[in-house]
């Protein structure tokens, strides 16, 4: 008796999502010292390059710098000129988990698969330049890779990688992040 191969999860519709990009989003506000103070204190990084103007001028950067990964959080701030999705999520469902139903700008269209279980498969960060105080941050998400793998029982699953590039008003790439999720 021949064993039938399981149907592929990497359908043409799924493959077509590779390279799909979201809107370019201009973040609300700019890189500012107060946001950075809160971020670096919560991170527990006391580096004077973030707050000591005189010392920062003596470094190779010549000015205060900001942690590159900070822009990934700064960029997802909820704009005050849009409907507040946090308020909406809890008005709709007081038991909201506070994240699943909260829409953020620049999201990608969903991958058309009936695999619904989502697991974190890993993260990457590439750093190219430090943000400066006053920088305006832009970002764009894209599906950089979708691969199929077979589980131990032979059932196919997907590894979906979402790439996000962050850059400033001078089109200098600050960092690139990639988040991979397993869809089973």
């Amino acid at each position, binding site marked *: 008796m021949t064993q039938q191969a399981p149907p592929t999860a990497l359908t043409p519709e799924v493959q077509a999502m590779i390279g799909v990009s979201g809107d370019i989003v201009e973040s609300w506000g700019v890189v500012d010292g107060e946001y950075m103070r*809160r*971020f670096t*204190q*919560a*991170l*527990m*990084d*006391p*580096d*004077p*390059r973030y707050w*000591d103007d005189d*010392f920062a001028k003596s*470094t*190779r*950067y010549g000015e205060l710098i900001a*942690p*590159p*990964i*900070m822009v990934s*959080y700064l960029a*997802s*701030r*909820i704009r005050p000129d849009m409907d507040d999705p*946090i308020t909406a999520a809890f008005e709709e469902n007081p*038991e909201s*988990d*506070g*994240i699943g139903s*909260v829409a953020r700008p620049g999201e990608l269209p969903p991958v058309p698969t009936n695999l619904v279980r989502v697991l*974190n*498969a*890993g*993260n*990457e*960060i*590439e*750093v*190219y*330049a430090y943000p400066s105080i006053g920088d305006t941050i832009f970002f764009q998400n894209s599906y950089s890779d979708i691969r199929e793998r077979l589980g131990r029982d032979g059932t196919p699953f997907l590894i979906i990688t979402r790439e996000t590039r962050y850059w400033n008003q001078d089109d*200098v*790439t600050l960092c690139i992040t*990639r988040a991979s999720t397993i869809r089973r």
Partner: protein
Amino acid sequence: MTTMLDDLLNMEPEEIWRRNERPDADGLRDKGQIYYEDVNEGDELPKYIYKPTPTHLFRWSAAIENFHRIHYDLDFGLNHDRNPSILVHGSWKQSVVPQYLKDWTLPNGWPWKARFEHRAMLVPGDILIMWGRVTSKYEKSQMGFIELEIGMKTQDGIESMPGTATVVLPLKDGPPIPYPFVPPAD
């Protein structure tokens, strides 16, 4: 000289905490450059030790505007998501990584890239050890590339964030690392 990871993992939690090598502001201000030639395969990086509390988690949630209740609402975490407690954020762990690489490569090296996975649920009360170890090194385009194994272990030796990283150190007689950083062509 850093305490070796294997030695730390044989210590009691409070002794691990006393071996914390996270630099303060002056340590970062005055740090001397590590050059490519100074580094050998098998070298270990300083160990950053953390003792997260609910207040640390709340502070991080507020700083990055992460409203996920599993990080600050104990009742929700226990009874809705069936977690053992409120959970340390993956976003905090992954933000420690570039900080850790920056600190080691300061003042003129470059913390180029890292990749890692999130495993294990970390909770207040855990002692966390951010660690790194040199796995290989090579020169390219007059820059010194250092490959690292990195991670964040609990006091029980559970690896919560296995990963790798590539950082760039200047050569003793080499040119400055370009800024913004431009990786060499393959």
